[in-house]
């Protein structure tokens, strides 16, 4: 007896939705087991990580503020991932975006007017795009793998951040801490819900997801991205340039990462310091896959991951789980979602007897 894979005539829509849910559930179950093995109350820990942030209303604002950058970056990365353009340097683009925003912030310090914030935000978007443009250029011009170049540039971005906030852009009033001056007045993102930490970036993240949904499902551009990712030769036959697609995918990914970075700066941290890079750029890769590269899926997945961030902190204080378990949980979710891809396209059949092979003659050359 053995298990055989049988290709479905059409991808299963049910599995498309069910597998991410199952991945999260499976991660929770394995989480209980791991925690118990570590001598921690597993049920309590998993409940704190995955449910408390949803049940306790005072945690909602934290979830919303953490979900926003994950959604924005994740939606942008999904475009690239669909086209098989692997931008894994969104963290770097997020940092450089925030840096560019902070740069505009320095230039506009003390100024007021409706245009100040848009200028800072545009700076952030352009900064993220510029950082992503380097791998795009290297890929198209020299054939350098964007996987390696975008990641290497993240390390460079970290050093750039460290240099700027500790040197030329250091806050003179910061008691020699490496940090930029606080943004003030019109430089700051208005709050969406007064009296909370929920800034305008949160509703914008939802709008971004909706806009990308329309773009990806209805536009010729979205069609192009999907064709390039599914069948590069067919894309060329259809008149879609692979080079242009690389440019677009990376620039969009960079722009979104930059946007998320500058929102974080203007809406949450108000200044840059060494603690600013928080790994949103990497986590967003998981968000993108957990959301099945679909903007609405990414919206939900962004919230799920934000919940685990917030819940992880809860569980750290309640049952004292180590900080690093978050990474393991995220990796497990990613593993499961990637592995479950196969259920979307294939059906598992348990067959008895001798191994048999799949396709009849002439069905496919």
């Amino acid at each position, binding site marked *: 007896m053995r298990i055989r894979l049988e290709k479905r005539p059409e991808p299963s829509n049910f599995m498309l939705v069910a597998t991410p849910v199952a991945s999260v559930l499976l991660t929770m179950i394995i989480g209980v087991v791991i925690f118990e093995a570590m001598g921690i109350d597993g049920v309590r820990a998993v409940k704190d990580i995955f449910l408390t942030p949803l049940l306790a209303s005072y945690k909602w604002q934290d979830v919303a503020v953490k979900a926003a950058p994950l959604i924005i970056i994740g939606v942008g990365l999904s475009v690239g991932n669909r086209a098989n353009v692997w931008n894994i340097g969104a963290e770097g683009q997020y940092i450089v975006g925030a840096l560019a925003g902070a740069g505009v912030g320095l230039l506009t310090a003390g100024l007021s007017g409706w245009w100040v914030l848009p200028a800072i935000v545009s700076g952030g978007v352009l900064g993220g795009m510029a950082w992503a443009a*380097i791998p795009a250029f290297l890929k198209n011009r020299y054939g350098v793998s964007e996987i390696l170049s975008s990641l*290497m*540039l993240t390390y460079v971005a970290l050093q750039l951040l460290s240099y700027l906030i500790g040197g030329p852009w250091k806050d003179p009033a910061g008691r020699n801490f490496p940090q930029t001056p606080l943004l003030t007045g019109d430089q700051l993102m208005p709050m969406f819900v007064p009296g909370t930490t929920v800034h305008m970036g949160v509703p914008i993240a939802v709008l971004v997801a909706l806009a990308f949904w329309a773009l990806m499902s209805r536009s010729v551009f979205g069609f192009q991205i999907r064709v390039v990712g599914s069948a590069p030769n067919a894309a060329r036959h259809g008149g879609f340039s692979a080079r242009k697609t690389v440019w677009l995918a990376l620039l969009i990914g960079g722009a979104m990462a930059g946007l998320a970075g500058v929102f974080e700066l203007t809406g949450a941290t108000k200044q840059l310091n060494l603690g600013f890079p928080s790994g949103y750029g990497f986590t967003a890769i998981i968000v993108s896959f957990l959301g099945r590269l679909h903007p609405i899926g990414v919206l939900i997945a962004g919230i799920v991951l934000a919940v685990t961030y917030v819940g992880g902190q809860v569980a750290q204080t309640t049952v004292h789980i180590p900080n*690093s378990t978050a*990474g393991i949980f995220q990796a497990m979710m990613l593993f499961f979602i990637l592995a479950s891809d196969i259920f979307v396209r294939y059906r598992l059949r348990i067959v008895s007897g001798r191994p048999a092979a799949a396709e009849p003659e002439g069905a496919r050359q």
Partner: protein
Amino acid sequence: MSFDVTSTLMTIVGISTPILLAGLGELVVEKSGVLNLGVEGMMLIGAIGGFAGTVLTGNPWFGVLAASGGAALASLMFGFFVLNLNSNQVATGLALTIFGTGLSSLIGTAFVGRIVPIFGSPFPAELARHPFWQLFFGYSPIVYFAFIMVPLVAWFLKSTRWGLILRAVGENDLSAHSIGYSVIGVRFAAIAFGGAMAGIAGMYFTTVTSQMWNEKMTAGRGWIALALVVFAGWRSGRLLLGAYFFGLLIELELLAKGAGFSLLPSQFWAAMPYLMTVVVLAVISARETVGSNAPACLGKPFLPSA
């Protein structure tokens, strides 16, 4: 400040050895047609595994076993996902890196602050500490192992039947399958080898370079090892050259920092190896001939129709 040639050379060896080992492992994996981006994660698992094994048993050779075994096990998990379930290799490799980072930190919490004796030279102290001869005899066994593995991997790939089969699987998996070779079996073996090598490479950080555990202490060297494979055009001899080139670069950075070069900020020197990796990749990739040695099936899923 005095400039000590011997210790400089020895530092370069120390920097180059882990990237060389991880690169050799990845080279074999990629030659079989699989792209495993989890090198960084496997190195971290090896780093903590080797450290923990050494601490718990007091014997660094058990550390080697734990480092290579642990990382190989993690790589087999990757293998199961990409080979049996045909999951996307790029994303699964990333997941492995995230997993390795998390797992190593988790295990590492129990070992923070502990120190192990250096996994040092197997030669008598007269040679290992000799002002001149230490240049040849003063290294950890891992260094000698790396040196032996370079010609061994080259010989295996070029001249043995198993090497021929491995290359064939990476070149054209469907043909290899139709002749009757087990594509998945060969790839599993290659992936496990790559994992074990990355594990030993990681152990170098915790038992030789520094004798303690720090989170994320491999600091992106796993990614540099990946770049190195491309740089070397999938040839183990050139991998050796490449690893030492990067070793030299990083050592220059340390020297520049140490000498207090104030013209350029220290962050510039810290960013240098990563920048240089990108630059070198561009230069190498621009020359057309290099790509021709890349395995034709690299990173593609194996989908036999019969």
